[in-house]
C-alpha cells in the first residue's frame, strides 16, 4: 500500500505538471494536443524515439544514482559534472594510449579508468571534508571548474588531432568501442547510439540497491547519512564513510564517460555533458534517492529531452523552452507533493504510535 503510494504521488505530480504545461502552450496560442503528440510521439516512436530516449536516459541514470548514493550517505555531491568530465577524459585517454590492446582487455581497462578517475576526483572533497571539515558542496562546485578547465587544457594542447577545429580528442582505438544495442535488438538500427552502457546503467542500479540495503557497507553509509552521531556510536568511522561514499558517488558519475566515449562519439568531446551532473540532482530527488525511482526519473527527463527537439522544430509557436518549463514544473510539483505530505499530518500525531 505505501509502496503503491510512493509510486502514485510522483505520477500525479508529473500529470499535474503536464496539465499546467498544456495551459502554458494554450496561453501562447499553440495546440497542446499537437505539442504533446510531438513530444510523446517522438519520444516513444520505434525505433528512433525509444532508442534515443533510452540513450539520453543513460547518463542521467548514472548521475542520478551518484547523487542518490551521496545523499543516502548524508552528502550533497554537486560535483558529478566535474567527476564525469574527468572520467570521460580518462576513459578516452586509455582508449587512445593503449590502442594496441585487444578488446577483451581494452574495454574493461577503459571502463575502469573512468570509474577510478571519477572516484578519485570525488574522493578529493571527501577527504577535505573528513580531514578538515570543509563543506563538500563548496568543494565539489569548485572542483567542477577545475575539472572542466583541466580536461579542456589537456584536449586543447595534448590530445587533439592536428587541424581539427573541434575541441575533441583523437579517436579512441576501435577495440575500445562497446557494441550498440542495434546489434542485438532486431529492428533497432545501428545508427542509434543506444549502447551497452545502458545495460551497465541498469546493472549499476541493481548493484547500488544491493550495496545500500543488503550489505553491511550500505548499512554504514545509510546510518552515517541518517544520523552520523548514532553511526559513530555504532562503531562506524564517519571519516572513512565520507570518503568512501564520495568515491562511490564519483565512480557512478564517472560511468557517464563509458556511454559517451566508448558508445557514442568514440572520442572525448569537449562540452559533451548537457549538465548531466546537475540534472542528476533533480533525478535523484525526483526518484526519492532510490535506484528504481532514479530510473523512472531519468526516463522522464530523457523523454523531455528527446521530445523537445521535434516540439521545437515542428510546432509553430512553441519553442524548446516548453521542455524547460515542463522540467521545472515537474520538479516543482514533486517538491510540493513532498511538502504537502509532510505538512499534512496533524500536530501531535507526528510519528508516535
Amino acid at each position, binding site marked *: 500500500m505505501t509502496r503503491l503510494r510512493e509510486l502514485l504521488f510522483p505520477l500525479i505530480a508529473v500529470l499535474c505538471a503536464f496539465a499546467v504545461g498544456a495551459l*502554458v502552450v494554450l*496561453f501562447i*496560442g499553440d495546440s497542446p494536443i499537437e505539442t504533446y503528440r510531438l513530444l510523446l510521439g517522438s519520444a516513444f516512436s520505434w525505433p528512433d524515439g525509444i532508442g534515443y530516449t533510452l540513450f539520453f536516459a543513460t547518463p542521467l541514470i548514472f548521475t542520478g544514482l551518484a547523487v542518490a548514493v551521496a545523499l543516502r550517505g548524508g552528502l550533497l555531491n554537486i560535483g558529478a559534472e566535474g567527476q564525469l568530465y574527468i572520467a570521460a577524459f580518462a576513459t578516452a585517454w586509455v582508449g587512445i594510449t593503449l590502442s594496441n590492446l585487444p578488446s577483451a582487455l581494452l574495454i574493461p581497462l577503459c571502463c575502469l579508468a573512468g570509474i577510478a578517475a571519477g572516484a578519485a576526483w570525488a574522493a578529493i572533497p571527501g577527504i577535505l571534508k573528513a580531514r578538515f571539515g570543509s563543506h563538500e558542496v563548496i568543494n565539489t562546485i569548485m572542483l567542477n571548474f577545475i575539472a572542466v578547465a583541466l580536461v579542456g587544457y589537456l584536449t586543447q594542447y595534448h590530445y587533439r588531432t592536428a587541424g581539427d577545429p*573541434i575541441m575533441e580528442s583523437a579517436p579512441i582505438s576501435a577495440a575500445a568501442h562497446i557494441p550498440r544495442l542495434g546489434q542485438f535488438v532486431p529492428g533497432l538500427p545501428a*545508427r542509434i547510439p543506444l549502447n551497452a552502457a545502458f545495460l551497465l546503467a541498469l546493472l549499476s542500479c541493481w548493484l547500488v540497491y544491493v550495496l545500500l540495503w543488503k550489505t553491511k557497507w550500505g548499512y554504514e553509509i545509510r546510518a552515517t547519512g541518517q544520523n552520523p552521531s548514532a553511526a559513530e556510536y555504532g562503531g562506524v568511522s564517519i571519516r572513512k564513510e565520507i570518503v568512501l561514499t564520495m568515491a562511490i558517488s564519483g565512480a557512478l558519475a564517472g560511468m557517464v564517460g563509458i556511454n559517451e566515449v566508448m558508445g557514442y562519439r568514440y572520442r572525448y568531446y*569537449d562540452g559533451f555533458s548537457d549538465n548531466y551532473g546537475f540534472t542528476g540532482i533533480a533525478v535523484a530527488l525526483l526518484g526519492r534517492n532510490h535506484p528504481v525511482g532514479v530510473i523512472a526519473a531519468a526516463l522522464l527527463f530523457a523523454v523531455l529531452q528527446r521530445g523537445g527537439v521535434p516540439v*521545437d522544430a515542428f510546432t509553430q*509557436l512553441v519553442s524548446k523552452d516548453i521542455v524547460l518549463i515542463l522540467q521545472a514544473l515537474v520538479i516543482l510539483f514533486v517538491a510540493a507533493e513532498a511538502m504537502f505530505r509532510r505538512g499534512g499530518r496533524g500536530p501531535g500525531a507526528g510519528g508516535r504510535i
Partner: protein
Amino acid sequence: MKQTAALTIIVLALIAPACRRARYVEDDTSKVHVGIVFDIGGKDDRSFNAAAWRGVKCAESGTLPDGKTSCDKPALGIVLRDVEPGTPNSIEPAMRAFAERGYDLVIGVGFAQAPIMQVVARDYPDIHFAIIDGVVFADDGKTPMPNVAGLLFKEHEGSYLVGMIAAKTSRTGTLGFVGGMDIPLIRRFEKGYEEGAKAVNPRIQVLQNYVGVTDAAWNNPGKGKELSLAQMDRGADVIFTAAGNSGLGAFDAVEQAGMQNGRATHFVIGVDSNQNMVKPGFVLTSMVKRVDNAVYDIVKEVVEGRFKGGFHVYGLESEGVGYVIDQYNRDLVSPDAIREAEDARKKIISGQIKVTDAMAQ
C-alpha cells in the same frame, strides 16, 4: 484566493489564443522544405547564429526575422523549420528529424556539427545538407561529400580591413583582440586583423586574449568584459572581438570608459553580424561575415535545382566578408581610413596583397 488565481490563469489561457493561434494543416509537399539546426548558442546570439537565421527567414518570406522589414531579396517559397538543440547530443536527432521527414535541405550552423552531419548525410544521400564554417569529407577524409555544401568565409581578409581601420583610428598605438574559444578559426580573425593593423603602422601593438578553450567561451560576456577592460588598462583603445555572446562584454567595457568631447575614448569592432547599432557611438565598425547571404544562396541553389556539394568560399570578391559603414558609425571612421581600406580591398581581390590564413598553416 487560490481558486481565483487558478481561474484567472485558465481564463487567460483560453482568451489569449484569440490573438494568435497556430494552425496545423497538411504540409504542402510541392514546396521545398528547409530545416536549420543552430548551434548551442541559439538563434538570438545577435551574431553568427542570428545571421544564419536572417538568411533562411529571408529565403522563406523575403523579410528580416521581425517579419516586416524587407531583406531586399525575393522570397523563395519554402517551408522553414528550425531547432535550437541546446545540448551537443541533441544535434544528431534534430538533423535526423528533418532528414526522416524528407526535407530537401538541412543546414547545420557551426563547424562543430561536421562530424554528426557526416554520419547523417551518409544515411541520406538524396537529401542536401549545408554546413556553415565547416567541411564534411567522405570516408576517405579528402573528397568533400557530394550532398554536403561547406559554406566557408575568408575571415582573415575582412579582419585585415578592420585591422587597418583600427590602426588608423587608434591614438595609443595599441589595439586589442578578444577571441572566444581558442581555435584555429578564431586565430584566423586575429592574424588578419594584426596584419591589417601592421600594414598601416608597423610598430603598432596588438594585445590578444581568448575567453576560454571550451564551448562555454562563446557564452561568457562577463569574462569578455574583464578581458577587454584589462586590455584597455594596458593602452588598447580599439578592441576587435570574435567571441559570439562573450563579445558583448567588450561592448559594455568601451561604453563604460565613456565619451570625451562627444567622442568615445575607446571603440569596439563587432563581428559576424552588423553590430554597429548595439552601442551606437562606441562601435567603430563591424567585420561582417555574410552568413545570411551564403545561407540564402544555398537555399536558392536547392530551389532552382542547381545544388552543388563541396566548398562554397565567400571572400571579399563575393562580398561574403567585409566591413560596414552606416548611419551609426559614419562619423567615427575617418574618410582617409575608408580610402585606404577600399584600396586594400581591391588589392586583396586582385591578389596584390596576400593575407595570411592562420587556418591553412
